[in-house]
């Protein structure tokens, strides 16, 4: 939920509006002072290989030079292609083509290690068997930590909901109390009926608040993945975000393409949208236009969240996705919002990009591959 510069963003480079693009892969293009990248190939593109690919791909000092599996339909091969990692159907070709530092065998095949040892060029290490299993366990552990971090950040964000919740609870409570006090003395039966109906409406409104928030606070589970209707998820996020930020004076424009869908965890995606909307509104200091847009093409679904706020200084754009980076005052931001967003989007095989013009606003564009599998459930929104 954090990372949108406020005062810093508004002050810097005000005369030279910058259009800066950054993506979650941007870290890879900046090897800085690191030594030569480690050239790693992954043998086996099942669940373990795919998870390993996703983690190693995020590390700037590792260059993934190839992935292979005997089954052409192995899930990791498709993911490798999305990440521009070369894919091989034969191990021989991979070993022949690419200079290697390390081979990671996650096939689970006990004969693979000795076969690889005979073919692997000198100087390259092989991780196989129990060592590869240990890596798989570490990767799973990392995934658990990311889920915990997301939940922790979500819970930390609840503090900022207090004002919105109090407003939305106490207004209907005022009506209920006032009407009930009046009913105690009311003798006109028609007035009694009308006021009783007002009380019922007010009670329903307070229960809606509890329902929204308890559903938002629940822990996300990997088993809930499915097709998500993006437009209704954005609308749901707006309802939640209004507890955190005042939307009264924000003009909201929706440019939805009907039936925009993405595949992933609906609770996590809701959290992403709530964070992006909250950031956008905070950047506008309660006056401006928030635009929510969905665009579907044959290959991708895009979601855009734009504001007309202070914008982000170019030198900060590369830092906003770093963990614990925030420009908000102490106690107002965890610095984990955009970091978590980046992780969730990567897990959904998508990318996040930001365009920002100082003094004019920012646009966050999320791009997801369009790959609705027919076996998945639909309409989880």
């Amino acid at each position, binding site marked *: 939920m954090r990372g949108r510069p406020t005062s810093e963003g508004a002050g810097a480079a005000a005369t030279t509006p910058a259009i800066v693009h950054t993506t979650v892969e941007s870290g890879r293009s900046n090897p800085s002072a690191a030594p030569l990248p480690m050239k790693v190939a992954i043998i086996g593109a099942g669940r373990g290989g795919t998870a390993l690919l996703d983690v190693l791909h995020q590390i700037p000092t590792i260059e993934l030079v190839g992935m292979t599996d005997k089954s052409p339909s192995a899930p990791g091969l498709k993911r490798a292609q999305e990440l521009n990692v070369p894919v091989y159907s034969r191990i021989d070709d991979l070993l022949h083509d690419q200079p290697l530092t390390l081979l990671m065998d996650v096939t689970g095949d006990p004969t693979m290690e000795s076969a690889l040892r005979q073919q692997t060029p000198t100087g390259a290490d092989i991780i196989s068997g129990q060592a590869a299993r240990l890596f798989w366990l570490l990767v799973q552990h990392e995934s658990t930590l990311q889920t915990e971090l997301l939940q922790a950040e979500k819970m930390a964000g609840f503090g900022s909901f207090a004002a919105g919740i109090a407003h939305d609870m*106490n*207004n209907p409570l*005022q009506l209920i109390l006032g009407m009930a006090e*009046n009913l105690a003395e009311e003798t006109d039966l028609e007035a009694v009926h009308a006021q009783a109906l*007002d009380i019922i409406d007010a009670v329903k409104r307070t229960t809606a608040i509890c329902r929204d928030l308890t559903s938002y606070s629940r822990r996300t589970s990997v088993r809930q993945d499915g097709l998500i209707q993006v437009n209704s998820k954005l609308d749901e996020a707006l309802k939640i975000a209004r507890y955190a930020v005042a939307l*009264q004076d924000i003009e909201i424009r929706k440019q939805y393409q009907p039936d925009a869908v993405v595949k992933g965890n609906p609770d996590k995606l809701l959290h992403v949208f709530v964070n992006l909307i909250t950031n956008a509104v905070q950047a506008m200091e309660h006056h401006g236009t928030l635009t929510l847009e969905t665009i579907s093409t044959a290959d991708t679904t895009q979601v855009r969240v734009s504001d007309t706020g202070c914008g982000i200084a170019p030198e900060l754009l590369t830092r906003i996705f770093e963990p614990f980076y925030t420009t908000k005052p102490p106690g107002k931001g965890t610095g984990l919002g955009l970091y978590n967003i980046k992780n969730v989007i990567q897990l959904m095989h998508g990318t996040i990009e930001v365009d920002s013009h100082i003094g004019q606003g920012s646009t966050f564009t999320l791009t997801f591959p369009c790959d609705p599998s027919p076996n998945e459930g639909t309409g989880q929104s």
Partner: protein
Amino acid sequence: MSEFKSGFFIGGESTNGRVLVVDDEPDIRKVVRMTLQKAGYDVLEAENGEKAIEVINSGENRLLLDVMICDIRMPKVNGIEAIAYFRENYPRVPLIVLTGFPDTDMATSLLRQGVVDYLVKPVEGDILKAAVGRAMERRELAPL
């Protein structure tokens, strides 16, 4: 407080005083109106600070408004902005804040600015009436 003690006439009708209720929630305006009217007050409504400023600047309200009850979180001109305007332009009118969100820092700051009471919703009718009664004692007559 004895009701009707300080009553005077507006449009031929006896009233304890004229109160402006500023809140973006129609339900709140409705229920506050109900409570205060039964206590003999003449009640005006405004849905935000901008409207409240319009109301006090129109006709006899300039002279005859006795108390304002104001919410904080409202669209357009919010409660803080409206209160600043009223304190500057109509310092004789006592202000009561009626808010959904208790905030100690804000309450302290508003009381320092001359707000006479800071009430948190939901507030009982008797407490609201007592607050308005106290505010009535603090009001000053408009200069003629």
